């Protein structure tokens, strides 16, 4: 990125805050996994925390928040195809003719 040095020095504090937030997030997931919310909700919570952490990394460390449109486009398609791969494969596993036995 072609940002000026002054600009960057202002970001540095932000990076440290994000780093701290990530560490806190890590502790949070571990803690959350010890409370029994019912299996499903534990999964949902863990994934929410992970996604939040991942967004922090992507947005601030990887500067996605101020990236160019072209890169958003690439990532948008990737996200879509990734979602398609997941959803359709898993969908196919839950849609068999009646009385089909798997395993």
């Amino acid at each position, binding site marked *: 990125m072609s940002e000026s040095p002054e600009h960057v020095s202002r970001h540095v504090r932000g990076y440290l805050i994000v780093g701290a937030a990530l560490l806190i997030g890590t502790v949070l997931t571990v803690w959350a996994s010890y409370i029994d919310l019912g299996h499903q909700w534990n999964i949902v919570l863990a994934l929410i925390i992970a996604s939040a952490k991942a967004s922090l990394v992507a947005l601030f460390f990887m500067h996605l928040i101020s990236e160019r449109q072209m890169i958003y486009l690439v990532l948008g*398609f990737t996200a879509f195809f990734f979602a398609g791969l997941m959803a359709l*494969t898993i969908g196919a596993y839950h849609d*068999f*003719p009646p009385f*089909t036995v798997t395993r």
Partner: protein
Amino acid sequence: MNTQATQTMPHAAAVAAVEHEDVGFWRKYIFSTDHKVIGIQYAITALVFLLFGFGLIMMMRWQIAHPGQPIPVIGPLLEATLGQVAAKGIMSPDLYNSFGAMHGTIMIFLGVVPLAFAAFGNYVVPLQIGAVDMAFPRVNMASYQAYLIGGIIMFVSFFIPGGAAQAGWTSYSPLATVIPTHGQTFWLIGMVFLITSSLLGAVNFIATIIQLRAPGMTWMRLPFFVWAQFVTAFLLLLAFPPLEAAAIMQLADKLLGTSFFLPTGLAVGGQLANISGGGSPLLWQHLFWFLGHPEVYVLILPAMGIVAEIITNNTRKPIWGYKSLVYSALAIGFLSFIVWAHHMYLTGMGTKIATFFQTTTMIISIPSVIILTCLFLSLWGGSIRFNTQMLFALAFLPMFGIGGLTGLPLGFAASDIHLHDTYYVIAHFHYVVAPGTIFALFAGIYHWFPKLTGRMMNEFWGKVHFWGSLIFMNIVFQPMFAQGMAGMLRRMADGGANYSAAVAPEAIGTLSHWIMQLHTYILWGAVGLALVQIPFIINLFWSLKHGQPVKSDNPWQATTLEWQTPPPPPHGNFDKPITVYRGPYEYSVPGHATDFTPQNEPPRGKAES
């Protein structure tokens, strides 16, 4: 994306191009980073593999027509090199299966993709967008080297004990895992290299097209060929990694004893297999076809790009519906990621998912129809020049038409019940890849040969090659539709003899004598096809030295940028700065003196540079 004309900084390259770098033989031809040299390396390697893949299928076709009889001439040779699997010069079922799997693999991953995408793309794309080279020359070199290593691994696997992979190019687990030989391991490792090569290539192509377009070369001024390569690169970039993941998992199943694709209770031979179980054979199929389907558009899109270039050049008029073509190519690219399970209808698919995939399959046929329509309509009002490349490009249209149309009955789950895994499928996709893509590639070779060498290929022998190929291709593949409809299955080492009326006279619905007879016609068709390739190969090499030299940089009087530089282009491609002023296909512009206006010709009124 920006469609406005942009004024970017002038290329430093233009100046640099003049300084001659003397780098010696190795750096120049073997470890070259010049996109043109790499393109040629790719082309030569890929052509050799195409010929090899053709050789495999010739032997198979002979064996199909004469099951249990030794192959004349080549049989003893096979026995000498491969040993027991070709005892007495007869192909054993193991050998048949491994030739079949390798024919598919070689043709697709080592032949057509490297030729259509990597070779033509490497040579032509930077020239057509007015760039000095690819964005990452060293990555480009690495891409070729990974391809070569992958190819060598695949080739070597024929000679290891037990021979090459035998589970089809689709390598379905558990079969691929339980065959006790090591061919599949080689196949998987080879694939990892080929996938790496394609990924590196794809990154490079996309970055090049985004970043290195010459000043004035806006998105809607890109030649259609560049668009086709752009979409293709995205398909490779995003569809290949799941296959890479799957390959790693299958490799683990094979070498580490895991059960990714092996279910509980697998009993190969009498006993329960000594594995943990718990895996899923269908997972492999999903991951394979997630690549497999986009892959077939990787085979066809560059071909469509080549055909569009050649048709517009030889009709001397702009392509009809340039924007529709571009949007259709993008739509194909996008949709090709969500149709894959139409290869899996008969694995036990419920109504919801089947409806989804049938619908997307039907939708994706529409942009193909649009592309073909545009190409057909481009002919109207033209002044058609029937040179060799044009003949091949024109023949592409109905041939792809047959292949594409026969995809429709396969695309409906219910009609696929009858046609799945029969020769109808074989005929369907060979019409798209053989008289389709291969013809487009031939067309491209005749078209760009003068660019590469400064000499023309011989027209007469080119036409012999064309008419022979057209006739024999149809003799080979047309009967397969009849065989498939009649229920002949694919991957039959005996050509279906065990399912014929002769072997099971009491049964209803077996293959008739007439259907079995067709094997003989196909065999002779294939022999004819092989023979008419000889003039092509000779023509290719002969013209290198003795072809008629071109009279100008632009022998076909084309508008696109690759013709605005001497043949072959110097290091750095252009000897003057290139600026683009107009769309790619300004042919026969009313009021213009010549019937073509190159993209970089300054508009009238502006002073010549």
